């Protein structure tokens, strides 16, 4: 068995609001292997973005890690000082955010913003940093890279800006890239280009990627392994092919059934009744039980543990206990 590059163990994250402590991520554990693309799937409010931000401690002030550990390179990231963490953030673990317009600084040139990252992590002269920036831009498919270094974010289109973000994220040869909904704000044709580019660079540089998305299509096309988040918990984990072909958890099944498919006719879609829970709501038992079509009495009172269907496939559902070993 390969050694995992990153290991998250029993991570819990709480938010303090009005003297109340609410646990928004509960007992998250997973491993990320070298060259693997791990997808985190979930609806808005399921905690998928927070779980990624927690890896590099980019959490908002009121939110903190309450227990658990994040092991990267034999170091526990939750215990590192801010200074040491800063050395890892942006160089070894970097991020690509959803909205490229708001994550780039509108008053700095593209060249400045890419070279800034390089200079922050390496001892390198400004000219060399700029040269490297130009190479990076070329790599992400921006033509005339040298002259475009002097342009500002508003000179670029949405897809190009996301390419710039990718260039910044890759500037220090990271081991892990966390991409948080990298293409949600883009058109389908551009989305395909960006995802292809990311997959190509991932393979070239043998990076691992954590891909956060709500789009199961993207998961199917670009990820190896997937975690399904719901209400701050991992409901199901499996290799992508298995997850989409043979889902075990009722939530994953329902999510897949509710997708309109191009090839199928115009029948009524299956839906998941109700709404995803707010993290302030306290739900007894399994958080999905009010919306679940296969709910049992047991689900309303006690939270199921994760049952292993096989070595790589786990599901947090009482029903999976019964079907265990199929």
């Amino acid at each position, binding site marked *: 068995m390969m050694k995992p590059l990153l290991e998250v163990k029993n991570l819990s994250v709480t938010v303090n609001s009005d003297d109340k402590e609410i646990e928004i991520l509960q007992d998250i554990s997973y491993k990320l292997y070298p060259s693997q693309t791990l997808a985190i799937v979930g609806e808005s409010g399921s905690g998928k973005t927070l779980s990624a931000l927690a890896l590099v401690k980019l959490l908002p002030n009121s939110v903190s890690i309450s227990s658990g550990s994040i092991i990267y390179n034999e170091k526990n990231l939750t215990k590192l000082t801010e200074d040491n963490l800063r050395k890892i953030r942006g160089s070894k673990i970097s991020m690509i955010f959803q909205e490229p317009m708001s994550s780039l600084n509108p008053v700095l040139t593209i060249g400045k913003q890419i070279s800034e990252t390089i200079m922050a992590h390496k001892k390198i002269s400004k000219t060399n940093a700029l040269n490297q920036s130009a190479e990076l831009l070329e790599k992400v498919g921006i033509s005339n890279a040298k002259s475009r270094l002097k342009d500002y974010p508003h000179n670029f289109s949405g897809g190009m800006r996301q390419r710039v973000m990718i260039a910044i994220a890759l500037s220090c040869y990271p081991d892990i890239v966390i991409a948080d909904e990298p293409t949600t704000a883009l058109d389908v*044709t*551009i989305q395909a280009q960006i995802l292809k580019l990311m997959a190509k660079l991932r393979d070239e540089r043998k990076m691992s990627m954590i891909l956060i998305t709500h789009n*199961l299509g993207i998961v*199917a096309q670009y990820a190896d392994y997937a975690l399904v988040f719901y209400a701050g918990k991992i409901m199901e984990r499996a290799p992508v092919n298995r997850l989409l072909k043979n889902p075990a958890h009722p939530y994953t099944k329902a999510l*897949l059934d509710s997708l309109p*498919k*191009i090839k199928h006719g115009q029948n009524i879609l299956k839906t998941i009744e109700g*709404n995803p829970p707010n993290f302030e709501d306290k739900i007894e038992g399994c958080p999905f039980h009010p*919306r679940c079509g296969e709910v049992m009495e047991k689900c309303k009172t006690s939270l199921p543990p994760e049952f292993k269907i096989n070595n790589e496939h786990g599901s947090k559902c009482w029903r999976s206990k019964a079907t265990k070993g199929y």
Partner: protein
Amino acid sequence: MKKILEIKNVSKKFALRKDNFFSARKFFTAVDNVSLSLKENQTLGIVGESGSGKTTLAKLILDIEKPDSGEILIDGKDITRAKGKELKELRRQTQVIFQDPYSSLNPRMNVENIILEPLQINKIIKQEQIKILHSLLNSVGLPQNCLKKYPHEFSGGQRQRIAIARALALKPKIIIADEPISSLDVSIQAQILNLLKQIKDEMRVSYIFISHDLSAVCHISDKIAVMNKAAVVELAPAEELFKNPLHPYTQLLLNSVCDADPENKNDDIQIIQNDSNLSPSCAFAERCPLYDQKHCLSENNLSEVKKEHFVKCALSSQKKALYGDRNEN
């Protein structure tokens, strides 16, 4: 079936800001010579990338913008030239559901007032209003006790239901849904798609469904128009369009969709960048994988290649041979 809406050769340009005081005014063409029609109780899907003119076209039909040229006939009457009472009557026939239910509902009005507002404007008798209100709540699946609540008390999906109820209040013949599901959660999208379908069957309305989500458009539409750079480049019945896309732009769009089936990898996306000022007659020339100078320089129009399948491409007749039926391979 009767045509409820006919758009004939509609164009709309917007003036751009001048570079300086003396320079000539430049224009941006948002909708370029578009002709479409919609039959009673049918759904016309409009797909295209952002900036392709989908929303401008919707605004023209709703008479929010006036076209520069062309006619828009609703039930045989031209809305672009109608005035006074006639215009008010025509506007009742077309209603709209917007993309973002967070910003399209007035936060200071409760559900009752939101849904009643169009009825009050059109001076429907009070007793009738209450009746309509309750039946609307029923048909969009909102509880009766929500009337005094405000939009912030609802989730995204429920807000979209309120917006749908408001659009239905005046019993319009045409409902324009401009990206109605793209801001909703995945599990909620299916609920709203089903609701729209159910309403279509119950109330016999017609939809214009604008979206960039091709699988949703395919699911709900009878006919689909593909727009690229202000023009309709392909128009065909939904099933035909997906089985047998003829325009290279439609093919690019379809290939770009991420399929939730991992065995169906979309590997064949080519990124093409032809010389940008080559062909004035085809807006897609710069990105077209089939670009060829001889054919693409000539004027081309939307022409019928197969029954009810229209394509705007000089090469469309040859393309059939190149790509074949999608089903066959």
